[in-house]
């Protein structure tokens, strides 16, 4: 059985700065995979290369065995992506965005209409029926992004910071959607820097530090006896320099 996502030797440098330094990762089918790392560790760059949004300097990625760069059409119908902070068709309403994308993917119109309605209702976006995406709040943008990732019924979800700026109620909704997706045989890869969230949701985890994989495996293998946060701090070797406190703030 091929892995849901297999990343091999991905590398990317921007000028002098090496963003991703030969990353290998295997996401087994049916797993809920968390990617953790500090800001600038290379999570977003790795995920963008894994789904074909950024061309790697070397290495490659396969989605259910389909090479992202050699067979993009097959690979990309199997994956749903939620990138962080990218634009949407801003002058459309949520329903129009989903209709547009569904048709663009070659889905039948009645299927698109039905799924769009369901997604909007589940994600509680149907109350803002006439609002254009450009006027959405950050949390609403995440939710419509997730809806676009789910629309075509992918077998793998790749989500970059899906819970950032999402309110607790919506976060619960998203969590239950994702758990249901994994229970139904789907696979999820998400990046986050909230350790508690990854510990709560994921069964596999990889720690990325300075563009390399510092540790990867099942959650229990990576965190050992302690919490994921302790294991993470130990792995990335954070110095305590930031903990000194700011002298002018205390009286």
């Amino acid at each position, binding site marked *: 059985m091929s892995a849901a996502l297999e990343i091999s030797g991905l590398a990317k440098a921007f000028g002098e700065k090496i963003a991703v330094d030969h990353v290998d990762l295997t996401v087994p089918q049916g797993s809920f995979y968390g990617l953790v790392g500090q800001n600038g560790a290379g999570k977003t760059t790795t995920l963008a290369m894994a789904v074909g949004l950024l061309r790697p300097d070397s290495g490659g990625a396969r989605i259910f065995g389909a090479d992202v760069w050699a067979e993009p059409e097959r690979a*990309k119908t199997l994956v749903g992506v939620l990138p962080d902070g990218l634009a949407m068709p801003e002058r459309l309403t949520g329903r129009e965005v989903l*209709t*547009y994308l569904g048709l663009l993917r070659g889905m039948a119109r009645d299927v698109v209409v039905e799924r769009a309605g369901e997604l909007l209702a589940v994600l509680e976006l149907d109350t803002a029926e006439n609002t254009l995406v450009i006027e959405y709040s950050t949390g609403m943008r995440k939710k419509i992004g997730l809806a676009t990732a789910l629309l075509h019924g992918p077998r793998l979800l790749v989500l970059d910071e899906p819970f950032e700026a999402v309110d607790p109620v919506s976060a619960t909704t998203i969590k239950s959607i994702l758990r249901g997706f994994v229970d139904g045989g789907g696979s999820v890869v998400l990046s986050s820097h909230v350790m508690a969230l990854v510990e709560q949701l994921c069964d596999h985890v990889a720690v990325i530090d300075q563009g390399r994989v510092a540790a990867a495996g099942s959650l229990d293998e990576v965190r050992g006896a302690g919490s994921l946060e302790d294991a993470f701090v130990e792995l990335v070797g954070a110095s305590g320099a930031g903990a000194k406190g700011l002298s002018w703030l205390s009286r």
Partner: protein
Amino acid sequence: MAVALTMAAMKMAVLRNSMNSQKAGLVVAGAVLGLILAGGTVAVAFVGDPNVGSVTGWHTGDLLAAAYAVWMLGWIFGPVFIGGGDETLRPEYFTLVGLRPRRLAFGLLTASFIGVAPAVSLVALAALVVFGVRLGSAASVLIALPAMLLSLVVFVLLSRVATAVMGLALRSRVGAIAAGLSNGVILAALGQGWVFFVAFQQVGGIPPTASAILRYLPSGWGLIAVEAAAQGAWPRAVAALAAMCLLIVLLLGAWAALLTRRTSAARPSVRGRRPMTATSAQGAVVAKEMRTWTRDLVRNHQLTFALAYAVFFTSCMLFMGMNGLLPYTGAVFILMAGAMSANLYGTDGTVLWLTLMTPGASEVRGRQWAWLLTVGPVGLALTVAGAAITGGPWPLPLALTAALLGGAAGIVPLISVYALVPGIDPHRRGGNPLRSSEDDGSLTGLAYAVIGLGGLTGVPAGLVASSYGWPGVAVGIVTGALCVWGFGALAESRLQSHGPELLQTMRTGKRAQSASARWKKFDDLPKRDQIIATVGWSLGAIPLFPQGIVAGVMKANGTEEKSWFLALHVPDPWGWPVVVFMVLLGIAMYGGALWVSYRPRPREEALPAAAA
């Protein structure tokens, strides 16, 4: 004052940090162009009769008043054309600092004087001093100095206030359309300004009413002061200067008020009402694009602008009693609308990721259809109406309309993927809706490129139509269809082969590094080499092409027109040596730039290869 100086320092730092080879080239080119215009303005001060009062023929004061009116209109309406004007320091940066609006406005104003445009304008305003000298009055020269500086402040402030008003106007559809109409008319008037001069030439100088109006514009107040000083009319001179000071205070207050509205007001709200009824992938792209055209107020503004520009551009010849241009209104509109949408993909920003995630769906074709559906009917209607009013000719305007429609619908997507100017994502744009990119110089270049290349696509049909009549229309339809099909296919394949690179360009705002290690990075060059490269790349074309090759061709053809070609002005035995010298100079400039930028064979890389 501390705030103002800090902001000025901040702007210098931002400009210094954002400088690269491409930007430096644009800045040098802009400065040279500006200095030519400023030099022209100073030259105007030497033309005509300087004496105050009634004179026969051209009056220097009138000419200067007209020139400064053009400069002022350029300051006011330039930002509309070049992406919202200078926004190096945005007011949003300072919302949390808690500055009072007036201090904020004063600080931003001070920072506005750092840059090429104010320096160039100051050179143009130096014509006031020249004029004072020609009037032979020490008092005039003395008055000209403060008048110069005050005029510059007025120009910069008018520009700032106009941009801020535009920002507010673009929050409603009515405002967007009204702004598009007025901007189009005024820019067309600037472009066709020569018409007025020809008209005035016929009556032997600028008529008194026009000259009075020109002087009563704020751009003419400095001139009033200088002329009044020459006549010894001190109260009038002082009053003119005081009026400028008052205007500055008022504008500063208005700008401060507008700044608070800009940082506090919400986004424009246009509601989505029509349900999407498309059933195919291409239909969906068309539906999305059509909605964007109607709902995005900046695009509303652009289309209205193109319309007003075209209508006024062709109809202002009516002032001279000529209506021959009217049938070509549609053609002008199509080219201008193309120029306005030149950065088709850049304006939409990183939404390209969705296209990349749905391979196989043809995005470009849908965009072309939407563009044709938006621009085509209006363009055709303008052509038909124009030709109907003048009673023909029919074939040439129709041929051009068909050819240019197809040409622009092909060129626009093609150029926007080949020369993508990274934009600011729509949801991240600040309070200035005209500001769709940080790189307004490249945006302007792209607009002109569409006008130039789009214009070329009309040439075959135009030639056939002007020689043989109606068959030209068929040629126009054929070349138009070929352009739509061919250029669209090229754009599509570029999008597929370079999609990730284009997305990366938009994400980071920087063009992807070329894979070749043969070219040195501009920032790594020593200062001397940077100067050589900048001057060589940006100015080498002037001696090589116009002054060298074109002048040579004209000389060989025995052309009478001398224009600005040095080789045609020098006495005979020297003409050809000048041509040769200019060609060699151009080659040397390009060669020098190439020499400092190109690394023939990187030694570090050559060694390991030899060892292996």
